[in-house]
């Protein structure tokens, strides 16, 4: 956040123009509120609910919502859906957030190097980005997930492998446009090292687009985790995730629809919130729409 403050020319970021603009963005604030509420619920709720997420009670199999203390019903093993939902939220949000950190880190490094160095290295790195983008992400994800044994960390890494390209492209374009600016030339004349100019002088000025892309990457990562876990190749049971709670829910669609509805609503709320926040940040930080 200090980077934004420098970018806006103020010492306190919450006084900056960007912060004020963001505070006026109703949808973004709604997104922040929903994410905070959801995160708190995932942290606290498992302690407050009457059932443990792994407690199997075969008498409560397929218990509908609001019966026997099961607020959101019970699954085919009689486990409490609410307890599993919040437990799963911890995993899904954590995987989404870590995958974002990892892919933003990789994308930023690749983008800065290719944008600053340019030449054949820059061209090669950007062609590599194009190459990864040519694969439909789910095909690549599933092939990697089947090849490597999926643990939560591996799932995070795999999602990052298929999500770093957007950030790399954005940073590359941003750095290219900043590379010839006076303050960079001044840095070169002062004899600063390439690494110092790249990461200490140019990068802070490219923070806006990176923050926006990172926020949208969280949304994407949560979705991708849900996709591969739903298909059975992501987070493995008994560890719950929003995606794998939906795995197998299809066969009980007629008799126990809450098994399919509940986790999907949680995914949609989380992803929508991050998309709202990303949109608000884009307006607040004056980031150009990447599509134009």
């Amino acid at each position, binding site marked *: 956040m200090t980077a934004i403050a420098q970018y806006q020319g103020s010492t306190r970021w919450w006084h900056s123009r960007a912060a004020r603009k963001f505070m006026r963005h109703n949808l973004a604030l709604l997104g922040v509120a929903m994410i905070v509420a959801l995160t708190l619920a995932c942290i606290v709720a498992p302690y407050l609910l009457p059932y443990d997420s792994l407690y199997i009670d075969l008498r409560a199999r397929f218990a509908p919502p609001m019966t026997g203390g099961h607020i959101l019903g019970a699954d085919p093993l009689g486990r409490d859906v609410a307890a599993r939902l919040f437990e799963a939220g911890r995993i899904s949000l954590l995987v989404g957030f870590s995958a974002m950190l990892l892919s933003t880190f990789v994308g930023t490094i690749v983008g800065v190097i290719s944008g600053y160095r340019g030449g054949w290295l820059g061209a090669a790195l950007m062609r590599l980005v194009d190459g990864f983008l040519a694969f439909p992400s789910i*095909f*690549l994800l599933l092939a990697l997930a089947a090849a490597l044994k999926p643990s939560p960390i591996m799932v995070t890494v795999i999602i990052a492998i298929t999500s770093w390209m957007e950030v790399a492209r954005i940073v590359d374009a941003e750095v290219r446009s900043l590379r010839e600016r006076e303050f960079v030339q001044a840095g070169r004349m002062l004899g600063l090292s390439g690494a110092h100019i790249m990461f200490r002088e140019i990068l802070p000025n490219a923070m806006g687009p990176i923050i926006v892309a990172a926020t949208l990457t969280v949304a994407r990562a949560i979705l991708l985790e849900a996709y591969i876990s739903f298909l059975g190749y992501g987070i493995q049971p008994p560890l719950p995730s929003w995606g794998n709670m939906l795995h197998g829910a299809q066969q009980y669609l007629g008799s126990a629809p809450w098994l399919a509805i509940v986790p999907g609503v949680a995914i*949609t709320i989380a992803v929508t919130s991050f998309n709202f926040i990303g949109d608000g940040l884009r307006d607040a930080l004056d980031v150009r729409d990447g599509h134009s």
Partner: protein
Amino acid sequence: MRSFLINRLSQSLVLLVIVSIIGFGVLNLIPGGPLAQYGLDPGMTQDDMARLTEQLGLNRPIWVQYFEWAGGLLQGDWGHSFRDGAPVLNVIGRHIVATLLLMGSSTAVAIAIGTWIGIRGATHRYSVFDYTATIGAMVALSIPTFWFGLIGIYVFSLRLSWFPAGNMYTIGDGSVLDVLHHLVMPSIVLALVHIAIWSRYMRSATLEAINQDFVKTARAKGLSERRVLIKHVVGNALLPMITLAGMQLPSVLTGALVTETVFTWPGMGRLFLDSLGYSDYPVVMGLLMFSAILVILGNLIADFIIAIVDPRIRLA
């Protein structure tokens, strides 16, 4: 136009090489690598494996192996399915029509609805419709495709019995009408995300075109507002949409895989998952490479269409 096309063609070829290198990397990540097939056979001894390694040349330098593998791809030798021994390209060929049908119909739905929403949003800017469409698009982009499919099946198949819950045709029927009936839900489910994307692009493209000088000229000539909109605004806004359609291909394919799984649609996506389940790596690798090649080809075709349609490139 010629230099533009040659430029794009050479870019695609370079991309093809890079994609094959990434694909080869994934192939070698699979436990057992190209020998995974034989690892499943209990009759194989360590000696047999060593002999096969020798025979298949897997002890040679990695780059030699890569060139042989890539050369095989070029010559149409994509290996054989572990499951039935059929050549991979034939297996893919059996499933491609179903996927193309699904992708085609859903893209048609997405373009029709998305274009309409986008234009209406741009001409009625900041109206209730515009705000609803904007927020609706963001929510639509956030709904997992497979979950939307599940909800669709619950409502329209199980509760209302309007549409079948899966498969491409009723066994014993298979008429065009029957297939269409089965096609409705998966197409709409797959289209949702792309309606959102198309309408967003169309809205900003229309807004951009509305303020151009030639539109003002058209109005000044006294053309009706409708005529100006259809001929001058939409006509110009649609051009970048061709490129967009090409760019959307990976995400359409991703959506198709998930949609096919939910609706047991017998296309490439289902084939991919089934093959994963059986550890049928030649087919998995084949589909991975095939989908990437399809994407590159799709983008190339989009560029060619642009080159023909856009006079700025055609006459350059």
